[in-house]
């Protein structure tokens, strides 16, 4: 495993005071909190931060880490020397706060994983109630990517999940499992599906946690999606728009014929009601008309443009006062 430089992660010098460490940590925790941050790696950073702070906020752990850290650099392959922690005492220090399941192997090789953690799961807010050793399993979160067409028809996706589990010897092992999940028709971008009991197993007689799957649409070459509504840019020729036409346009459920009225302006939005993503109140499909000009590459095309120039008096800048 790699050695982790906890000072570097929090962004303080090795001789920082406890107060400085706390301030720096709080600042970064706000910045990288996964619910707030837009940074791509926020979740990883936030976990790292929590771990670093867990090690440094407790003076005993910090002293032990300092003792050890003198000869190591971040990223170096690391195994704790035997008796490295002789003379330090970590247990019962009252330094809870994080969720020990989230800590790295590096952290656990130093400080173990038996200390009081999992606060988020066991938080019992009513006072004076006796706490038994029962804990609902942790919820898991995962993302699943689907195509827009899947939202119209529904689909089945298999997802690979890695979850740490404790085996019969008390070791933490990463268990891989594959789940086949039905993606219901009518799902929207960012919407979540809850699978009861598919999170971590509970402790004692407590139930397992849940699995939350967040649905993300793969970017589509043609369509843009907003909620249940779908947008499609359709290129038309100037004569189709000027003279009116019946053209074929694609939709996620198959091609349809679309009537272009005579004199349709560029950028006109046409609504195909109910052709968006299906739902109790289905979304609409919006078609945005985009003029395209034929290239003037051939002599014939050039002739036609020239003819227009001569016979079609048109100044699009007439209202600009020039």
């Amino acid at each position, binding site marked *: 495993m790699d050695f982790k430089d906890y000072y570097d992660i929090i962004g303080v010098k090795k001789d920082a005071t406890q107060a400085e460490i706390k301030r720096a940590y709080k600042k970064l925790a706000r910045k990288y909190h996964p619910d707030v941050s837009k940074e791509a790696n926020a979740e990883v950073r936030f976990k790292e931060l929590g771990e670093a702070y867990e090690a440094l906020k407790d003076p005993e752990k910090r002293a032990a880490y300092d003792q050890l850290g003198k000869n190591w650099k971040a990223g170096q392959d690391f195994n704790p020397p035997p008796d490295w922690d002789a003379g330090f005492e970590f247990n019962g220090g009252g330094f809870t706060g994080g969720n020990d399941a989230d800590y790295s192997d590096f952290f656990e090789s130093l400080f173990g994983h038996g200390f009081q953690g999992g606060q*988020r799961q066991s*938080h019992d*807010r*009513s006072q004076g109630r006796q706490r038994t050793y029962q804990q609902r399993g942790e919820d898991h979160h995962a993302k699943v990517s689907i195509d827009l067409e899947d939202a119209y028809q529904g689909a089945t996706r298999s997802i690979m999940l890695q979850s740490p589990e404790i085996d019969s010897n008390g070791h933490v092992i990463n268990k891989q499992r594959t789940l*086949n999940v*039905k993606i*219901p028709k009518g799902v929207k971008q960012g919407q*979540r*599906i809850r*699978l009861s009991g598919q999170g971590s197993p509970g402790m004692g007689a407590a139930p397992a946690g849940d699995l939350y799957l967040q649905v993300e649409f793969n970017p589509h070459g043609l369509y843009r999606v907003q909620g249940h509504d779908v947008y499609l840019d359709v290129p038309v020729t100037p004569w189709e728009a000027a003279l009116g036409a019946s053209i074929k346009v694609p939709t996620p459920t198959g091609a349809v014929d679309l009537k272009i009225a005579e004199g349709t302006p560029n950028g006109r939005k046409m609504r195909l009601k109910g052709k968006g993503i299906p739902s109790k109140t289905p979304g609409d499909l919006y078609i945005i008309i985009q003029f395209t000009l034929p290239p003037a590459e051939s002599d014939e095309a050039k002739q036609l443009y020239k003819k227009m120039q001569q016979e079609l008096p048109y100044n699009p800048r007439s209202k600009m006062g020039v």
Partner: protein
Amino acid sequence: MTEKILKGILLDEQTELSLNDLSYACCSSAEWIIQLVEEGAIEPVGHKTHGTQKTPWRFSASSLQQAQTAMRLQQDLNINMAGVALVLELLKEIENLQAELEVYKANNKD
């Protein structure tokens, strides 16, 4: 590897959850959810009072998301209820602005 196909609950606008469902999903007490409601951070849907008889609270799936975010914020950043409610509101605002910005960008490309 299982061949079983799991079917979950789609947390969409139509999904409604009870106070119990919500506190279970957040690993919180019902009292904590009530505090969230009192702070105005989440709101029960279609809550009606028939004379003195009250129908039990029902919550939308978006309330579930809000409540779970609130729980994480409170625990990870040590924010009190009023602060959590404010953060949730500001996050919503940012989300709306971002969506507007996307539309604006899409309409003004090239």
